[in-house]
């Protein structure tokens, strides 16, 4: 693990990169990283996230700034700009049931090719997907997701990069921290090693590549 300034960490991300971004309606989204992506004017990003939040909040800022080409998410309904850009053809959106989305990310991080789920069977979600029967029940084959970068927000990070999360800001973060080539962490609090008890470490330090220094 290395510690970088915000600007240097975000400079690692090239145009066209695929980004998993933690958060649920902006809660648990690394906000300083989002602002710096906008400031550096990245282009053609693919964003994998639960939702695109609201205009002016979290991932919504990336949408408004026109940095995003592809979105893979479970919900865009509260961000009219995402819908408008989708209808205008400026953004490709793949809508995925939330439980399927998180499991596809988990599979990507856990070395699995995908998962079998009954969610979506008999709906538009099954279009173009392989269906298999196990013990007499139908399942969809949902492929694993992997990204170039995971942008993770933790509540606590220690100097080694061990992470713990708070309340409902955990959501997609620890799962995404497993599923990307490079993991960049923005922590609300950076603390000395030992302050996060071993039993309370959710993301172990070896998974973290870069910890962003406090500004």
């Amino acid at each position, binding site marked *: 693990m290395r510690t970088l300034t915000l600007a240097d960490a975000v400079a690692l991300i090239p145009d066209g990169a695929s980004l998993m971004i933690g958060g*649920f*309606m*902006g*809660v*648990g989204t690394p906000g300083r990283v989002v602002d710096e992506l906008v400031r550096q004017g990245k282009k053609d990003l693919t964003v994998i996230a*639960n*939702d695109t*939040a*609201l205009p002016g909040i979290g991932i919504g800022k990336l949408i408004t700034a026109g940095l995003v080409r592809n979105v893979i*998410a*479970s*919900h*865009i*309904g*509260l961000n009219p700009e995402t*819908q408008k850009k*989708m209808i205008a053809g400026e953004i490709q959106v793949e*809508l995925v*049931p*939330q*439980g*399927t989305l*998180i*499991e596809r990310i*988990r599979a990507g991080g856990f070395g699995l090719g995908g998962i079998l*789920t*009954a*969610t*979506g*069977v*008999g*709906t*538009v*979600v099954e279009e173009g997907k392989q269906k298999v029967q196990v013990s007499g029940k139908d399942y969809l084959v949902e492929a694993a997701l992997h990204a170039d970068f995971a942008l993770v927000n933790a*509540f606590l990070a220690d100097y080694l990069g061990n992470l713990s*999360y*708070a*309340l*409902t*800001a*955990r*959501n*997609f*973060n*620890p*799962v995404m921290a497993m599923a990307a080539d490079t993991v960049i962490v923005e922590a609300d609090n950076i603390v000395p090693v030992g302050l996060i008890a071993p039993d309370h470490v*959710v993301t172990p330090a070896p998974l973290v590549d870069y910890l962003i220094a406090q500004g």
Partner: protein
Amino acid sequence: MDAQTIIAKRIALELRDGMLVNLGIGIPTQVANYVPAGIHVFFQSENGLIGTGAVPEEGMHNRLLTDAGGRPVTALPGAATFDSAMSFGLIRGGHLDMTVLGGLQVDQSGHLANWMIPGKMVPGMGGAMDLASGAKRVVIAMQHSAKGKSKVVKACTLPLTSARPIDLLVTELAVITFPGGRATLQETAPGVSVQQVIDATEAQLEVSPHVAQMSL
């Protein structure tokens, strides 16, 4: 009593002590206001919380503690938080006793459409498909009609949320179950006749031999 209150109060009677329950947004959220006295229910928010409590007092919110709509909530004593994989494992894995969801249409075989109107509203399904497919019991809270048209239809014309039929439909007029895949009237709201329900319903409606009045 307005339509939403009738629906929420009737669904609250389905709650049992110790249940794990997920409430959708809209009318379903109001069910939490009418938990019967003397029982404890665990409410899940799919963004990673069991033990979801009421909206905090002004100035007491925490930006890291919200419901699945991103609104501030409180956590009750004994609450637990977890990641989204655990949250949906609870939903799909047979651990969620009941989900209460809103509906755009329910058809006479119990199929639910509640997530999109092609060409008009494409918000994404969020957790609805997992909840409708995975919960042990699926309860729909829905007004009987919209703009004078029955939402209890012969066959859903909107995209389905799940191929799995729902278990219970509660509207401001009626309680309907789906034994053998056929919509069957079980209860009517106070002051509503069986014939009024049938007249307000597009679906072919079977009538239980023992139609009761909702006890609100």
